[in-house]
C-alpha cells in the first residue's frame, strides 16, 4: 500500500486543479461546501480494518491508485447507452465519466410539479433548495470517502417534487464510465419529496471497459410528511473498478421509503445505506441483492434509526457468492428510548456456491425501548442438492437447474421492486449472469 498521507496530499493538490476546472463555479456560494469538505478530508484518515465499521473491508486496494479527478471525454452514442436503460419513456439522465450529457438525456427540466435536472445546473438555478438539503444528511465530518466525494462534487441528479404532487413516470439515471484509466468520479444525488409527494427513481452505475476507475457517490433522500419514494440502485460497474457509495435517507412523519440495492459488478464495493425516522408512523424497506464472483468484495452496511415511535422497517438482503468472492452484510437497527411500538424486521440470507467464497454477516439490533417488535437473522447455506436432483429428474439440465434454484433464491428481492420494467430487466440480468 502507498503512503496514505502522500495520497491525501495528492487528492488535496488535485482539489486545486478541480477548482480551476469549475469555470467560475468556485466563486459560487455552493463552493464553500466543497472547501469545508476538503478541509475535513485533510483531518480525516481513510478507514482501516481496525475500525469496527470497516473490519471486513480493507480499502487499501482503493488507496493504491492516484486517481485523477477529471472527466475524460467520450464518444458514447445513444445506442451505446440504450442497453443500460429500462424504458425510453422514463425521464432519463445520462452521465458519462461523471459529466452530464444533455444529448443522451431526455429534455425534462422543470415542470410545475417537479424539478428533475442535473446537479450542476441545479446549483445555479435552485441554490436555495440545494443549500437547504445538500450535505446536510451525508456527514462529511465522519468519513474520509464522504468528505472526498463532497469536496469533488461536480455533477449528479437533483429531483425535487412539490408538495402533494405525484410523479408517476420513473426517473432513470445512468452513470456510465468509459474513461481513461485511473479516474475518480463523485456522482452526487439529491432527491427531495415534499409533504405528500411521490416519485420513483433508479440509479444505474456501469462501466463500458475494463479500466480501473473509482466511483465515490453520495445520494441524499428526503421524504417529507406522508411522502412515498421508491429508490433502486443497480451497481454493475466494470469488474476492475471501485465503488463506494453513501445513501442517506431522512423520513418525516408517515412517509414511506423503499430502497433496493442491487450489486453485480466492481472489484471492491462498499454501500452505506442509512435511514432515519424523524417523525412517527414512518415505514422503510431496505432490500438488497448481491451476486459476486472472482475475487470481488461487496460490503453492504445499513442502519435504520428508529428515532420515533410507531415506525415500521423491513429489511431483506440476499447474497449469492461464487468462486473466491467475499460479501459483507452489516445491518444495524437502532431503536431509541422514545421509539415505542417500533416494528423492525431484518433478514440476511446467503448462498455460498464455492468453498472459497466468504460471507461476513453481522445483523445488529440495539434496542433501548421496551414495547417493540424486532427480529433479525442471518443464514448461510449451499444449494439444496435434493432440489437440484428433483429438477434434473424432471429433465432440466444441471446448469439450468442450478440457475433456476439460484434465481429462485433471489426472486423475492427482485419481485419486491415495484417498477415493472426494472423488475423484468433484473430478471433478465440475473438469468444472463447465472447461465
Amino acid at each position, binding site marked *: 500500500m502507498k503512503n496514505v498521507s502522500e495520497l491525501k496530499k495528492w487528492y488535496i493538490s488535485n482539489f486545486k486543479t478541480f477548482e480551476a476546472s469549475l469555470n467560475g463555479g468556485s466563486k459560487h456560494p455552493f463552493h464553500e461546501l466543497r472547501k469545508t469538505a476538503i478541509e475535513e478530508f485533510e483531518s480525516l484518515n481513510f478507514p482501516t480494518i481496525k475500525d469496527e465499521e470497516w473490519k471486513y473491508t480493507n480499502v487499501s486496494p482503493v488507496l493504491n491508485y492516484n486517481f485523477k479527478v477529471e472527466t475524460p471525454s467520450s464518444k458514447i452514442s445513444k445506442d451505446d447507452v440504450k442497453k443500460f436503460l429500462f424504458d425510453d419513456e422514463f425521464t432519463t439522465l445520462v452521465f458519462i465519466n461523471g459529466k452530464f450529457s444533455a444529448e443522451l438525456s431526455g429534455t425534462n427540466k422543470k415542470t410545475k410539479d417537479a424539478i428533475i435536472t442535473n446537479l450542476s445546473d441545479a446549483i445555479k438555478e435552485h441554490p436555495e433548495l440545494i443549500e437547504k438539503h445538500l450535505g446536510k444528511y451525508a456527514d462529511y465530518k465522519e468519513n474520509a470517502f464522504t468528505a472526498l466525494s463532497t469536496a469533488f462534487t461536480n455533477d449528479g441528479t437533483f429531483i425535487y417534487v412539490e408538495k402533494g404532487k405525484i410523479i408517476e413516470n420513473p426517473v432513470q439515471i445512468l452513470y456510465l464510465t468509459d474513461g481513461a484509466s485511473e479516474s475518480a468520479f463523485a456522482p452526487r444525488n439529491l432527491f427531495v419529496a415534499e409533504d405528500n409527494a411521490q416519485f420513483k427513481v433508479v440509479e444505474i452505475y456501469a462501466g463500458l471497459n475494463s479500466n480501473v476507475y473509482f466511483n465515490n457517490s453520495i445520494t441524499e433522500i428526503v421524504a417529507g410528511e406522508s411522502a412515498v419514494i421508491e429508490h433502486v440502485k443497480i451497481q454493475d460497474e466494470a469488474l476492475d473498478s471501485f465503488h463506494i457509495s453513501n445513501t442517506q435517507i431522512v423520513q418525516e412523519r408517515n412517509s414511506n421509503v423503499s430502497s433496493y440495492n442491487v450489486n453485480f459488478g466492481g472489484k471492491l464495493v462498499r454501500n452505506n445505506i442509512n435511514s432515519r425516522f424523524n417523525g412517527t408512523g414512518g415505514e422503510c424497506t431496505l432490500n438488497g441483492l448481491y451476486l459476486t464472483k472472482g475475487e470481488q468484495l461487496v460490503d453492504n452496511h445499513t442502519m435504520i434509526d428508529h428515532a420515533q415511535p410507531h415506525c415500521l422497517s423491513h429489511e431483506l438482503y440476499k447474497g449469492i457468492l461464487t468462486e473466491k468472492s467475499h460479501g459483507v452484510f452489516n445491518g444495524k437497527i437502532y431503536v431509541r428510548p422514545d421509539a415505542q411500538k417500533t416494528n423492525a424486521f431484518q433478514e440476511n440470507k446467503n448462498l455460498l456456491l464455492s468453498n472459497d467464497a466468504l460471507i461476513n454477516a453481522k445483523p445488529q439490533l440495539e434496542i433501548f425501548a421496551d414495547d417493540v417488535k424486532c427480529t433479525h437473522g442471518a443464514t448461510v447455506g449451499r444449494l439444496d442438492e435434493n*432440489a437440484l*436432483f*428433483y429438477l434434473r429428474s424432471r429433465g*432440466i439440465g*444441471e446448469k439450468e437447474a442450478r440457475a433456476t434454484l439460484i434465481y429462485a433464491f433471489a426472486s423475492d428481492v427482485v419481485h419486491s421492486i415495484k417498477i415493472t420494467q426494472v423488475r423484468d430487466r433484473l430478471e433478465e440480468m440475473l438469468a444472463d449472469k447465472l447461465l
Partner: protein
Amino acid sequence: MLEIKNLKVKVEGNEILKGINLKVNKGEVHAIMGPNGSGKSTLAQVIAGKEDYEITGGEVLFEGKDLLELAPEDRAREGVFLAFQYPVEIPGVSNVNLLKNALNSIRKYRGEEEVDAMEFLTMVKKKMGLVEMSQELLNRSVNEGFSGGEKKRNEIFQMAVLEPKLALLDETDSGLDIDALRIVANGVNKLKSEDNAVILVTHYQRLLDYIVPDYVHVLYKGRIIKSGDKTLALELEEKGYDWVKEHVNELAVG
C-alpha cells in the same frame, strides 16, 4: 424396456442392493414390495440417477441404453420418471414453470419443437383434471406448503404432463387417505398404456387394489427373493413380512 442385471449398490460402505435382476416390458405394471430398509427406495433412486450411491456391479439397460452412464436429466429425457417418496419443496420456482421447462428440455433432447405458451396451457388444463389439481396449486411454488396428499398428487400430475415411458412410483401411496389414494391411483390407471410401463414401489398391498400389477416382486435385504402375480401381494398382506423372512431363512437352511 428396462432390464436390470445383477445390480449391486453401496451407500456409505454398506451394501444395500446385493444383485437385483428385473425385466420390465412395455405395457406392464410391476410392484416391488418389501419391509422398510429392504432397498426399495434405493432401487428407485438409482434408476432415476441420484448420485449418492456407489454402484459396485451390474447394469441397468433402458431400451438397450446403459442408463447408469446417463445424467439424471438425460434419463428423464429418455423417458424415465420418478415420483418421489418425499417430493422436494422448491420455494420461488412455480410448478407451472418447472413443468414448462422440463417439458421443453425433454422435447428439445428428442429433436421435437418446444411447446408455445398457449399449447402448453391447454395441455396442462387437460392433465390437471386427471388428479384433480387446482389452478392455485399449479401456480404456487413447487410443493411449498402442500399437504402430503397434494404433494403426491403433484407428482402424478407431473407424470401426466411429461408422459414418461417408464414411471417409478416410490411409495406414492404412503400417508394418503383413501380418497387421495383413489385419486392418485385413478390418475395412474388413466396414464397406463400399451406403450409405457409402471413400477410401483410400496410397503402395503392397498395401492394394488387400485392399480393392479402384472407382477409382484418381494425385495428383502437387497435381493428379490420372490416374484409372482398379484396374488403374491395378497398373500404377503395376509401373512405379513415375517412370512417372507421365514421363507428366506428356509431357503438359507434348505
